[in-house]
């Protein structure tokens, strides 16, 4: 185990931002810390970086306690939400910063900078001023800067949240490829489950300062540990398993769980209709209960038949 968090608690005065969190990240593994804003995930990340002191518990690397190791000796790279590039340095100057701190020779430093800029798709940007870059470009430079000194662990704090949607999705895919290719051990903090599932080998769900569930993305997605987690992961309706023909206690339904289909087993009345990017989302009434559903075009007031799609169903627990 590369990184080990052993029952970490971080307090600000009376309130505990992080309570009793234990987590491990294996060598080369990418773990996402996923949770709503204010759940303590950024605080946890800052604690690992050494920017906050845990009030209890320990951060260990390969078994060695890091309590006495200051930020600049931990060799953990950190990428902020908004880049935080050094405005007085060029793109190359930013990327080279960590290498200079490690006293890497000029020649190999320059080579490393160029190869990293190529890696993040910014060839030829070396001499640009960072203030002239777009948000996406800045974030790529921030990533290159953090990767340059080959950190033992890469910490990413909402690395894509400040970007607009199209760019975010594109960069998430790029970032996932990059982390895999460089075989980087990384911990990503995000509140966006798409982002977490794209990037991570394992996902840890945080809620009110605690980790409530850890697992591979598919497992967390299909069986959230409780109703709250299920809600955070997009379930908006909770019904007995028998409703969808499963032999489990409770299941959560996402909108995609019900699909308009003439051959469907259920029947409902369309109450509302909203156009989304690639489908139509409906609110239908079935036996006096309201459900969300997706479907081909239908008019408000129509009686429609609905089929259950188990991909949209999450087992609770």
């Amino acid at each position, binding site marked *: 185990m590369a990184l080990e968090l052993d029952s970490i608690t971080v307090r600000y005065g009376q309130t505990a931002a992080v309570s009793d969190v234990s987590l491990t990240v294996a060598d080369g593994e990418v773990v996402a810390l996923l949770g709503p804003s204010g759940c303590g995930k950024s605080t946890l990340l800052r604690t690992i*970086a050494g*920017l906050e002191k845990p009030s209890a518990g320990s951060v260990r690397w390969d078994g060695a306690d890091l309590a006495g190791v*200051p*930020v*600049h*000796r*931990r*060799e*953990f*790279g*950190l990428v*902020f939400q908004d880049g*935080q590039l*050094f*405005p*007085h340095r060029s793109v190359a100057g930013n990327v080279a*910063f*960590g290498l200079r*701190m*490690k006293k890497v020779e000029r020649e190999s430093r320059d080579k490393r900078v160029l190869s990293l800029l190529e890696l993040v798709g910014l060839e030829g940007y070396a001499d640009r001023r960072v203030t002239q870059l777009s948000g996406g470009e800045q974030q790529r430079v921030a990533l290159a*800067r*953090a990767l340059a*000194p080959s950190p033992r662990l890469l*910490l990413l704090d909402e690395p894509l949240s400040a970007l607009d949607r199209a760019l975010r999705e594109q960069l998430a895919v790029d970032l996932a490829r990059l982390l895999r290719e460089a075989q980087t051990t990384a911990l990503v903090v995000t509140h966006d489950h798409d982002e977490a599932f794209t990037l991570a080998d394992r996902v840890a769900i945080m809620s009110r300062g605690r980790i409530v569930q850890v697992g591979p993305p598919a497992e967390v997605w299909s069986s959230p540990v409780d109703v709250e987690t299920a809600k955070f992961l997009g379930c908006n309706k909770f019904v007995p398993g028998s409703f969808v023909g499963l032999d489990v206690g409770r299941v959560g339904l996402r909108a995609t769980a019900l699909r308009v289909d003439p051959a469907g087993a259920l029947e409902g009345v369309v109450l509302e209709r909203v156009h989304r990017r690639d489908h139509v989302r409906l609110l239908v009434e079935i036996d006096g209960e309201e459900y969300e559903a997706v479907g081909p075009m239908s008019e408000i007031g129509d009686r429609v038949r609905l089929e259950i799609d188990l991909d949209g169903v999450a087992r609770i627990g």
Partner: protein
Amino acid sequence: MLPLAFLGLFFAWPVLAIITLGLREGGVTTVLFAADTWELVGFTLGQALASTVVAVVAGLPVAFVLARCRIRGLGLVRAAVMVPFVLPTVVVGLAFRTFWPDGGVLPIVLANAFFNVAVVARTVGGLWAHTDRRAEDAARALGASRPRAFLSVVLPALAPAIGSAAAVVFLFCATSFGVVLVLGGSRYRTLETEIYLRTVELFDLSGAAALSLLQFVAVLAVLVLGALARRRRETALALRDREELARRPSGGEWYVVLAAFAVVVALLTPVVGLVTRSLSTRDGWSFAGYVALTTRGDRGTLAVTGIDAALNSVRTAFDATLVALVVGVFSAVVLVGLRRSGSRIAEVLDTALMLPLGVSAVTVGFGYLVTMDALPGDFRTSPLLVPLAQALVVTPLIVRMVLPVLRAVDERLRQAAATLGASPLRVWREVDLPLVGRSLVAAAGFGYVVALGEFGATSFLARPDAPTLPVVIARLMSRPGELNSQMAYAACALLMVVTVGCVLLIERLRVPSSGEF
């Protein structure tokens, strides 16, 4: 601890010595019950209040233009407003005397205001530039007229800045020395000039000390009020949005722009008047005054030539700036560090560092005379005394200029450097220093100019054989002879040219909207 030690040795001790002197000799009671003391206090506060009002009224339109308008000649406005603030007080006094040869209350008030328009324009303008324009737009969209929106949205947002600027201006005016001395003569006296007169001409040390004590109490009160206002302002600044672009003025705003330019013209008038006066004699245009700078004045008024005094000024101000820069930057770094760790001491230290700004330079100079005998070596006659006193006057200004910039360095930027392997010292060198570098240079230039023009403390401490230019000017003015006054005006013009040159240089280096002054 270094800044505190410096403050303690070269500020607190002399001032305390004055206070005990005042208390011990029973001077306080005598002075407190004398009717003319209260007349003095009344006039001091009255003229300060009037000057503050004038400065605020004149400064607001300028603040608006600096913060909100995108028009040609903005750099010129900025520099023109700044020049009076750093002009030596004696020079300003003389400049106003070219228009009011007999002095009087009106020129005193106008001259004091003249100095401080810059403080109002810069302090208020600084906040104004960071205040989200959309609040005003929202008020307008909700049906408020332009003046209504200004009164109900903009003015309340600016109130803390106006309050703290007014407090500082009031302080400056209440302790203003050179201006009152030159324009008031013996008829109109404030606490500050009275302290000087009693010490230097009447040798009434205990009376002077008692008056210093009275002044110190008043200053402390105003400073505490100012600190409260500043605290409110900093919370306001924390709310600010990204600095938005200024736009071209429209409609009624042009009247404000016009008013601002009228203020600028009014500010430039005494300056132009002074230069004109330095070139005109009874016999027409002449460089006689400038030529006389190579001499010791009419019938040997001075112990050294004007040129020697000028060179001495340049050297002294350089030393003073160096000391002030070290102490000021160190204090600012400590203050920011303390504030980041959420310490309460930060606020106390912050206010303590402002004290020398408000305590009259005359009191400090007087205090040096009283205390410096006690130090090892012949400190009282040491050539270091003047630079140290000037450094004391300059340090608070440097702190005020560097502190906001230092504080504005994003903590996460420093953290990013740390995660990349930079030790705390390295972070300071690689991140903070390059980011505040320009404002450091600007602060140094600014401090240099202020030291160059410092008169209050210097007039006490400068030895006759090593006077600075402002001291020489005052001496020349106090002696009869046309050549003497001609020479004084020429010296003023010279001092002004140097000052303006420095200010223009600072303007080029200025980081947008940094610092208070």
